[in-house]
């Protein structure tokens, strides 16, 4: 029984030792399943190369050392009649196995240093992108272009909590990916807004911690268009696993078109949400919105239908704090016909209609509700 157990032991041990070998062989066929991706940039290729060198060096040493050990375990067993010798020192051998590993390490230090120098390339970039980690999303800002947006997980809670089947891109999809052109050197400036995050795209070989108040830099340049998915790799709270990085690399023309659209959007944004609206502008816009979206229930004169739809004229919400009024429109009122308008009306329209309601039919709060206030409320949730 014990004999057989020992044979099993030997074979299993050799399996453990040979697994990295098997791993590297399999890696050829099933790409990213078992091994590090080669990626699409110089840095990721350098990391992969040094990784493979290390695997092979370790495998050769491991096979040698463990091979010898298994031989000893087989040949010098008591059950085979082995009698113990009594030596316990040999200066020559001991020096040898101190010096030889040192030499191996010194040799390995050369490719390791070269690879690291690639990571630290500080040459001029073509494009600079500021990446800010938030709990739990990323913000991308194209420096000098005036383009800035948030990128959040798109997978729904229903998928996460098993109320709906998981989609193909489960936890690998975002509202708005980072878009980059091929063939340009891009510098990423990574920082954190609240706690430490870490921005990682394996195919770029870029992983940089996002520390509040501190900027760290990484870079990438690739010739392969495609979609590359990465992750947040520094524990940042409960949403840590739910803030993926998605990067789309496009041909230059496509990228330019995308950027032009983005710029146009941000100009529009600046002229709507970003702009400070006057009371008159809001009143004019608000009346139209009110008649179209609210008057059906609350009536054009703001009196509502008693017992069915409450009046806005003189209502404590319309005369109360602005934030409560915004909340009713954004969140709706549970258990009533008042639904959420967050997705139906733009921030500008919501601000306008709130301003209209607070300053019509004898309501005279007199404050001005700006689109930015609505946006802030939305973001605060």
């Amino acid at each position, binding site marked *: 029984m014990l004999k057989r157990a020992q044979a099993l032991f030997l074979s299993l041990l050799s399996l453990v030792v040979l697994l990295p070998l098997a791993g590297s062989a399999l890696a050829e066929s099933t790409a990213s399943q078992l091994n590090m991706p080669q990626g699409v940039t110089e840095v990721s290729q350098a990391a992969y190369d040094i990784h493979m060198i*290390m695997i092979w060096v370790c495998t050769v040493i*491991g096979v040698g050392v463990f091979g010898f050990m298994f031989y000893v375990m087989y040949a010098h067993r008591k059950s085979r009649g082995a009698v*113990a010798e009594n030596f316990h020192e040999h200066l020559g051998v001991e020096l040898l196995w101190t010096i030889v590993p040192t030499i191996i390490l010194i040799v390995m230090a050369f490719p390791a240093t070269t690879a690291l120098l690639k990571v630290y390339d500080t040459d001029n970039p073509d494009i600079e992108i500021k990446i800010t980690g938030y709990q739990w999303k990323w913000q991308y800002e194209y420096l000098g272009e005036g383009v800035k947006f948030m990128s959040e997980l798109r997978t729904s809670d229903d998928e996460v909590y098993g109320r709906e089947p998981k989609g193909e891109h489960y936890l690998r999809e975002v509202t708005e990916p980072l878009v980059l052109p091929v063939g340009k050197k891009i510098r990423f400036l990574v920082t954190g807004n609240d706690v430490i995050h870490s921005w990682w795209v394996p195919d770029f070989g870029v992983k940089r911690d996002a*520390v509040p108040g501190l900027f760290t830099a990484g870079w990438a340049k690739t010739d392969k268009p495609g979609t590359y998915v990465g992750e947040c790799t520094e524990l940042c709270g409960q949403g840590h696993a739910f803030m993926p990085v998605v990067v789309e690399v496009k041909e230059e023309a496509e990228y330019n078109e995308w950027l032009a659209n983005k710029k146009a959007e941000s100009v529009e944004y600046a002229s709507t949400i970003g702009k400070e609206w006057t009371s008159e502008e809001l009143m004019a816009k608000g009346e139209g919105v009110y008649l179209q979206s609210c008057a059906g229930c609350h009536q054009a004169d703001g009196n509502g239908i008693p017992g069915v739809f409450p009046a806005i004229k003189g209502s404590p919400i319309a005369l109360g704090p602005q934030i409560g009024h915004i909340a009713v429109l954004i969140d709706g009122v549970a258990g009533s016909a008042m639904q959420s308008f967050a997705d139906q009306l733009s921030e500008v329209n919501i601000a306008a209609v709130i301003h209209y309601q607070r300053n019509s039919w004898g309501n005279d709060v007199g404050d001005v509700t700006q689109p930015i206030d609505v946006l802030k409320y939305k973001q605060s949730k």
Partner: protein
Amino acid sequence: MAHGPATLADGWRAYISRWVFTTNHKDIGTLYLWFSFAMFLLGGAFAMVIRAELFQPGMQLIRPEFFNQMTTMHGLVMVFGAIMPAFVGLANWMIPLMIGAPDMALPRMNNLSFWILPFAFAILTSTLFMEGGGPNFGWTFYAPLSTTYAPESVNFFIFAIHIMGASSIMGSINIIATVMNMRAPGMTYMKMPLFVWTWVITAFLLVAVMPVLAGAVTMMLMDINFGTSFFDAAGGGDPVLFQHVFWFFGHPEVYIIILPAFGVVSQIIPTFSRKPLFGYSSMVYATAAIAFLSFVVWAHHMFTVGMPIAGELYFMYATMLIAVPTGVKVFNWITTMYKGSLTFETPMLFSIAFVILFTFGGFTGLMLSIAAADMQYHDTYFVVAHFHYVMVAGAVFSGTAAIYYWLPKWCGKMYNETMGQVQFWVAFIGFNIAFMPQHFLGLAGMPRRYADYGLQFADWNMVSSIGAFIYGGAQIMLLYNVIMTIKFGKPTAEEKTWEGAEGLEWTVPSPAPYHTFAKPPEFK
């Protein structure tokens, strides 16, 4: 010896007082060992929750917030509650026996250093039931997640860490004093068993770095409650400073865990090879070298934080160097077996598995030291796999080996060899099924501390979870084996349980009497 220790026959009160007020090194060693095993099961239970949640993609059992508390508590309980006290327990039991001392040098402090531990862990565990939950910032508790953004319970966490630190420091001072002052005549430093050597070096490490941990949590405490800004960029501090302070403690801490394991294995392998340890003095020097190097490599945990390239290169080279003394140890162990007369009882099986798995973890450690590649490995499951190979295969396997090895000496009964070997195989196979796939997960891009993951990681996570459950089962078998041995084991009164065993602990009867070496033995 007027009377022996109180037993249950003397009544409950006498029995409980015996354990509460004991100053006997064997009693305290026993307390440490049982306490650490209880903590091992608790930390293991947390691990089972983690692996159960990760069995499939999606959140099935718990919320991400609770998941983070589980990973944090698993790490803290295993490092500070299971592994460290287990080795302190072994030290308490074995060091006086090995150096021919009647007891530890400072028996009352010994009692205190044990009895504050349960309070520390009661406090730590109770945070799980507090409003806002327990610590959820990882066992490395990086600021500002652990300061500005921490749950209320963080103050209790800090208090618990302080108590654990005090306990460790007292335990270490005791060991240092014992080894320096209590050796039997003829027991010179270079004749001490290697287990004693590794523990002395560990004790010095502990005295040096536990205060640094205490300093780190104290600075956190001040940042949280008194408005200072050591780690808060807003006030001119720096969150990265926290990482430097933490790893200045943290890296030596890793060796604190592994060095006594080296010591255990260096006792067991010669016994079952029936041949003295090869290269004793180079083992001592290698241990000292590893301890020294542990102080100058800490920032290799921070390659992605944005250090200047000169810093990265220095920490990379220094880290690679650790492979040399560690390699010396492995070569020495194997050469000890060479031309020996080998038998493979359970302790030997665990020790050989230790050598293999620890070396495997050492290889991945060497890979991690290469900064450019570490940019890809950092904070992924590759790292998780690496440190479980060195921590679990290192500390837990050698700890288990030590239990089987010395259990006959402790209780005078022999464990069931078949059961021991079965337990070994379950543990060995379960361990590898659990942690080998995590290498692949990490390389394929799965970050650590993830409560949920994409579908491409589903297969290996399921395999890993199954392995983890098997490995968890193996620990229940260990508990069963120990209890069965104590209750029903075959009595073995002979002093030298193992044919090839050497050392003073094998010159006293089994079970070791309550008081040993009242008169110092002669050691040649």
